[in-house]
């Protein structure tokens, strides 16, 4: 029997899945990898710990499941979080930790570039919003602030490129991860000279640019031995977690949108054209030569509900946040939609799409004497999903969609799904106990090995069985409150700036 392995290098865990050739999941394991915050704005991961964690988890899955049942591993396909940057020296050794997407140290570089004419031009060619998340601004930050390190650096890699290099000796980056660096011209699919100039680097300092189906060189002999894999096991460079999630949910063309609610969240659409937006609201990532994934990310997803639970949940058992969250959801369901006029802006972590305001903060609005703890709770969940709606609404001005699919550990909670359906007034499709990112990686592998004739054909086989339809009366109620939500989110810009300044002093 033969199987396909997928590896997701996420910001807080490495996840390894095994699938048979028909896409049936055989098993999975994860391994936690910490994110370090040595300064308030910093967010870093240790590349070697990720590498070791990946080896450990992969080895365990192979030894527990794949080898005992005599599965032959045909290919291993990788996905990873976007926007990471790792400087390596001339021997290929990391110069400190990798900087992750959540790192805001390049705030100043991003703000200045965004205001400039050059910035507008770079956004147009690269499709990546000018934001501290973007490797373009991070590398510029290193150039401006760590001159010695910048001088010594021989390459700037994504975390996935580093891991692949450790396994095979080759430096590669796939189109999708590359298109999230702010350095790639997504129309011509080559590094953008003006962006590279701003970052102060040359193309030789970046990994080789390759399509997502590319197989890297052979797995190093030592790893073949320690993992028990044969020399002909293919390693596929793969794509980013965001692009994989949308594939895994069966989206390959226009007319559909995909929502992810994990700790953070995103709304994405796919098409064969870039979404050009004057206000630079969207990202546009490249999946293949003729497919772009466009959308907007939010900082404030399930992590805000978790924050609320930590403060106000019951915690009958120590650290059992799942149980406390379920109990809160139960209580929230007893309150009517709209929380009887209590509105919550979830911007505890600043916000990206659609307001792109790092200074934004959380707000309760409309509190009256009848509101109870349960109202405050329901308002939090509504606020998180109003934000998801506001991204979708902005996207819809550029590209119409009729159906929605949803994934993510929070997104697939029944209470959340129903609320998304009601707020959008559209049916929402999903599948429980399903990991969209890994399934997307399986589809890439299966297409590459010819099980499907094309990626389109592969993705069309995905059927999300569960459909949640909107309840008629709720949409109108939500919409009335959403109007106020939307207006507050921009109206308070001055006060957000003032309070953020006070909080930072």
């Amino acid at each position, binding site marked *: 029997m033969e199987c396909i392995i997928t590896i997701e290098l996420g910001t807080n*865990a490495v996840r390894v899945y095994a699938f048979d050739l028909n896409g049936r999941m055989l098993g999975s*394991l*994860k*391994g*936690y990898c*910490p994110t370090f915050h040595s300064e308030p704005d910093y967010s870093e991961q*240790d590349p*070697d*710990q990720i*590498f*070791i*964690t990946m*080896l*450990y*988890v992969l*080895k365990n899955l192979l030894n527990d499941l794949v080898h005992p049942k005599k599965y032959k591993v045909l290919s291993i396909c990788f996905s990873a979080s976007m926007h990471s940057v790792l400087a390596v020296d*001339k*021997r*290929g*050794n990391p110069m400190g930790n990798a900087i992750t997407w959540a790192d805001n140290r390049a705030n100043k570089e991003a703000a200045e570039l965004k205001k400039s004419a050059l910035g507008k031009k770079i956004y147009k060619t690269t499709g990546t919003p000018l934001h501290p998340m973007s490797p373009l601004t991070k590398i510029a930050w290193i150039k401006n602030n760590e001159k010695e390190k910048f001088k010594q650096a021989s390459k700037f890699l994504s975390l996935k490129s580093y891991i692949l290099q450790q396994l095979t*000796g080759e430096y590669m980056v796939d189109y999708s991860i590359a298109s999230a660096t702010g350095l790639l011209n997504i129309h011509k699919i080559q590094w953008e000279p003006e962006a590279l100039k701003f970052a102060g680097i040359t193309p030789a300092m970046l990994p080789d640019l390759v399509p997502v189906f590319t197989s890297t060189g052979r797995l*190093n*002999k*030592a*790893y*073949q*031995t*320690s*993992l028990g894999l044969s020399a002909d096991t293919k390693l596929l460079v793969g794509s980013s977690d965001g692009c994989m999630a949308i594939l895994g949910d069966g989206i390959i063309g226009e007319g559909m949108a995909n929502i992810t609610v994990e700790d953070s969240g995103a709304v994405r659409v796919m098409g064969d054209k870039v979404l050009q937006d004057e206000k630079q609201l969207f990202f546009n990532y490249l999946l293949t030569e003729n497919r772009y994934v466009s959308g907007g990310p939010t900082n404030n997803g399930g992590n805000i509900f978790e924050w609320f639970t*930590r403060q106000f*949940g019951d*915690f009958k*058992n*120590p*650290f059992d*946040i799942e149980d406390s969250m379920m109990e809160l959801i139960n209580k929230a369901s007893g309150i009517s939609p709209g929380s009887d006029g209590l509105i919550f802006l979830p911007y505890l972590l600043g916000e990206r799409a659609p307001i792109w305001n790092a200074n934004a903060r959380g707000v309760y609005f409309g509190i009256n004497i009848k509101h109870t703890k349960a109202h405050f709770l329901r308002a939090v969940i509504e606020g998180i999903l109003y934000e998801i709606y506001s991204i979708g609404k902005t996207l819809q001005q550029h590209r119409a969609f009729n159906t929605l699919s949803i994934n993510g550990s929070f997104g697939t909670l029944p209470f959340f799904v129903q609320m998304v359906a009601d707020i959008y007034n559209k049916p929402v499709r999903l599948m429980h106990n399903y990991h969209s990112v890994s399934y997307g990686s399986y589809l890439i592998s299966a297409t590459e090995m010819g099980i499907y004739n094309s990626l389109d054909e592969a993705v069309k086989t995905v059927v999300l069985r569960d459909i949640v339809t909107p309840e008629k009366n709720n949409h109108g109620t939500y919409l009335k409150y959403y109007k106020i939500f939307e207006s507050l989110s921009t109206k308070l810009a001055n006060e957000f700036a003032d309070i953020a300044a006070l909080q930072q002093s």
Partner: protein
Amino acid sequence: MNQFLLCQKKAVELLLFPHIEEIGVIKNSAIRLNGFLNIVDDGLKIYYVQEGKFEWTINHRPFILYPGDVALILPGIAFGNENNVLEVGSFSWIHLRIKVNKKGQLLTGSWSSLSDSETRAVSKILQMNSSPVLQKFTEAGHIFKSIQSELFNQEIGYQARVNHLLDEIFIQMSRQFSRISNPGRDFPSTFMKLEHELRQDLSHQWTVEEMAALVGLGTTLFNDTVKSYSGFSPVSYLINIRISEAIKLLKKSDINLTDIALDTGFYSSQHFSTTFKKLTGYTPSQFRKNHSRTK
């Protein structure tokens, strides 16, 4: 409790307890200038407030203590009233002679029946706490009272009981401190704190009991919680950090393999080499060679 004061070398009651420098209770009915001096010494002190309100500084930070509150002053930490004033009220205290080893760990001494690993965990917990004050910790008051009556009544077994009660106070304080710093709500941040402690002292032979104690959980619940959160058993997670750190050191070519092995907590270079090869397929020296070439 009535007022009393027993001092080592003067009080016969302390003859069998050379580790107790001083124990006493004071009831003060009028403010006394120069009655409570700000001092630093190398003993460990525990104060328990019974009545009144006391403004004390510990390690140059001001604290106000109310009845039921306990202050813990670690060796070498400045303690007293800022103006040297003894305020109105009553409190009991004990000063213990506690040694500190080179690594900064508190060594309770031969009187204690805590195991080595428990002592290390207790020491870590007491030292990593941000506040030296436990509020409303009346258990300490009861223990103080029992110690006092054991010392004065000297019934059969009192030597053992006093020492047990001293252990008891350390155990109760550690549990209370770890409950306060880990209120059982935020495992991600609790786990980050633990991970930080592990990295700070990677060469130490950590036991699961020690790790669990730092997080304020029993070992069974600790194992389950770590496993479901991280996918690793606590020991596997520790090995992962050890190897990740070793990789970094291997890439700096000037440290020898035995030092790397010991610094990252392996028993020997042999143990390091086998563990490393099992996971990576390379021996540490092959790995080093591969990564010292210019690419």
